[in-house]
């Protein structure tokens, strides 16, 4: 049995760690590429959202590499994400592939099925070992997110373009290689040291840009066409609304992003007063919060036809007008070109810089997300 799963940002680090700890066979699908998008889009429903198309592509490439057991998270809506596993299964069966699919549903009335599935997937390893492995993997995810956040915060200071990204890659490698809590602790120190040691240009003034949107696009640099890196290069201190850990730990406290769900929903209430599935309400709430914290602009990323984010996109212009903060909505699908996004981001960064000079206070640091900086 060779397990595979679709890519999503740094989920790979978490799950490889989990399966390595358990000594269970797995196959890592090749990194998402143009080919992934093409074969995914070929087999998927026409106006399904990009994440579905690319995950189908990932799964096909994994099966081609020899995977026979696919795992995928499932849910209960109202966003389409909860129905992904079922649709992927049908799409792949339609395309004639041989595999077994295990949807993992995380809520109370599906607990029995979940336990049964995990029991099967862990292939006779003990439950204690499974719990230990999960705990360790979550710690890794947390660390990865903290590093990523640090990189987002400091990229604008790079003396040499891409230095932070290179350091981040090295840091990931350190984390991937560590296999015990002591090693992870050492890796944490070394990794942060790597990031801090990147040569900095002290004379610059940053602009502050927040990123909100659908998590798949926000988390995965391949699909947001490197929006975060580009913004960093344009001199922006970037903060993200959602991190992988915030999503994996459904306590609503968001340890990395730093703002609990309750606060976000409260912030969104004047504009959107009911959850609409996915990240819809969070996108609106975070946009409001970013303004309150003194950010200069918000970039909103959404896949084409995404239902919750389309609602957010309809409401964000009002937020922008009410609170006087520029918001750029980028709709991304498999046809989106890199140059188009780059041009818009450049123009947006110029606008934000202009506003920082004229409207916002010079050198003011955003209010309460600085606890890790």
């Amino acid at each position, binding site marked *: 049995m060779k397990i595979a799963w679709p890519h999503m940002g740094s989920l790979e680090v978490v799950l490889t760690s989990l399966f390595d700890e358990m000594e269970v066979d797995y196959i890592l699908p090749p990194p998402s590429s143009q080919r992934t998008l093409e074969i995914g889009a070929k087999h998927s429903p026409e106006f399904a959202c990009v994440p579905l198309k690319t995950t189908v592509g990932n799964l096909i490439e994994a099966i081609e590499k020899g995977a026979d057991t696919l795992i995928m998270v499932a849910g209960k809506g109202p966003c389409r994400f909860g129905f992904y596993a*079922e649709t992927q299964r049908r799409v792949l069966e339609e395309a004639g592939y041989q595999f077994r699919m295990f949807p993992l549903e995380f809520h109370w009335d599906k607990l029995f099925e979940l336990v049964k599935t995990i029991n099967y997937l862990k292939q006779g390893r003990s439950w204690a070992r499974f719990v230990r492995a999960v705990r360790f993997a979550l710690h890794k995810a947390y660390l990865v997110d903290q590093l990523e956040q640090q990189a987002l915060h400091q990229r604008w200071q790079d003396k040499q373009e891409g230095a932070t990204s290179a350091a981040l890659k090295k840091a990931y490698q350190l984390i991937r290689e560590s296999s015990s809590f002591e090693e992870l602790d050492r890796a944490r120190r070394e990794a942060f040291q790597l990031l801090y040691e990147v040569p900095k240009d002290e004379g610059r003034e940053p602009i502050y840009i927040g990123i909100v949107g659908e998590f798949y696009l926000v988390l995965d640099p391949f699909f947001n066409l490197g929006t975060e890196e580009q913004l960093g290069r344009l001199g922006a201190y970037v903060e993200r609304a959602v991190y992988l850990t915030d999503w994996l730990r459904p306590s609503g406290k968001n340890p990395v992003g730093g703002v609990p769900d309750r606060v976000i929903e409260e912030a969104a209430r004047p504009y959107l007063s009911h959850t*609409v599935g996915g990240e819809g309400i969070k996108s609106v709430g975070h946009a409001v919060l970013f303004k309150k914290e003194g950010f200069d602009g918000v970039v909103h990323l959404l896949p084409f036809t995404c239902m919750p984010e389309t609602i957010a996109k309809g409401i964000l212009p009002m937020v922008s007008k009410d609170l006087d903060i520029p918001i750029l909505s980028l709709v991304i699908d498999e046809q989106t070109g890199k140059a188009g996004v780059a041009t818009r981001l450049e123009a947006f960064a110029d606008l934000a810089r202009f506003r920082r000079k004229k409207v916002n206070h010079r050198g003011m640091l955003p209010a309460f997300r600085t606890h890790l900086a």
Partner: protein
Amino acid sequence: MNNGDNISFTTELGMEKRSMRVGVPSGLLYYRYFPLWKSFLEYLGAEVEESGKTTRAILSAGVSKAENESCLPVKVFYGHALALKDRVDAIFVPRLVSLEKKTHTCPKLLGLPDLVRSAAEDMPMVISPTIDFHRSLWFNYRAVYSIGRIFTSNPFRIIWAGIHAWRRHREYQKKLAEGWEPLLAMGKEKGSPLCEGRKLRIGVIGHHYNIYDTFTTMSLLERLKGYGADIITVDMVPDAWKEEEVSRLPKRIYWNYERELVGALLACARRRLVDGIIFIISFACGPDSMIHILCEQEKRRLGNIPMLTLVIDEHTGEAGLITRIEAFVDMLNRKKKREDREKIGELVAV
């Protein structure tokens, strides 16, 4: 949901001594619940104003105002809301969250009141009770009651309005199930019923706002009647059959209206209720994009009932649509003739 300005507005109106004019945009859930809303609001003493049938002007207003990525019915709904905004004191857009436990309606319907509020600067007050049967009955009662309080302070009148409206709603549903189009069932237009023993029978499966909107579907139902076909819609398939089909599926479908669509479509296929199925989807419809492949696969397992999928959006051309429908109907006719001949052949042989 019943915030401060609503109440002050009522007292202000009370002083003016005129009844409040409430606008109901004729899009999306209008085709399902309008008699319910209308009788509830009118019983409470409001004047109900509709935006009427979709027209070219309404559609283009909606398209220019709504998000590009929205689906066609939401764009149409924007158009209707904009057409009403200058004529009324308030717009009635309920937030329907779920119709039964562990289900949801489409996310677009969850966010609809907020979308309408942000559609224009000078939007009148938007009345939006949150109806959510995933939560307790008490929650829903309070939602309805708080709407009633905008119009009257007499609690019994509100309760009676609710009961009255529910009765009207049941009558309306019964009429839909008997095969009357919404406008005929509401008694606004005269016309022939969907089923009256014509030679073909076609299942037209799709959301109410897609199949009954005569403008965006270019009067599909009328045309099919003209080609000599009886029509079966989602409403006309008994609920028990739909539920039976849906419960057979491996993964529970959690969208209320999609459950109905899938149930109706599969019931049509399994029980051979129809000669062919026309499945209507609006472009960029989220849930439908997922269940389409499910329907195709499951239907194939139930034997080969021909199915035509029509994806409509604001650019759909009349000629393209008609050609496809004509071809489909011709094919069904030929198929039916051949089958009849075979049947007669068998009888003769016996």
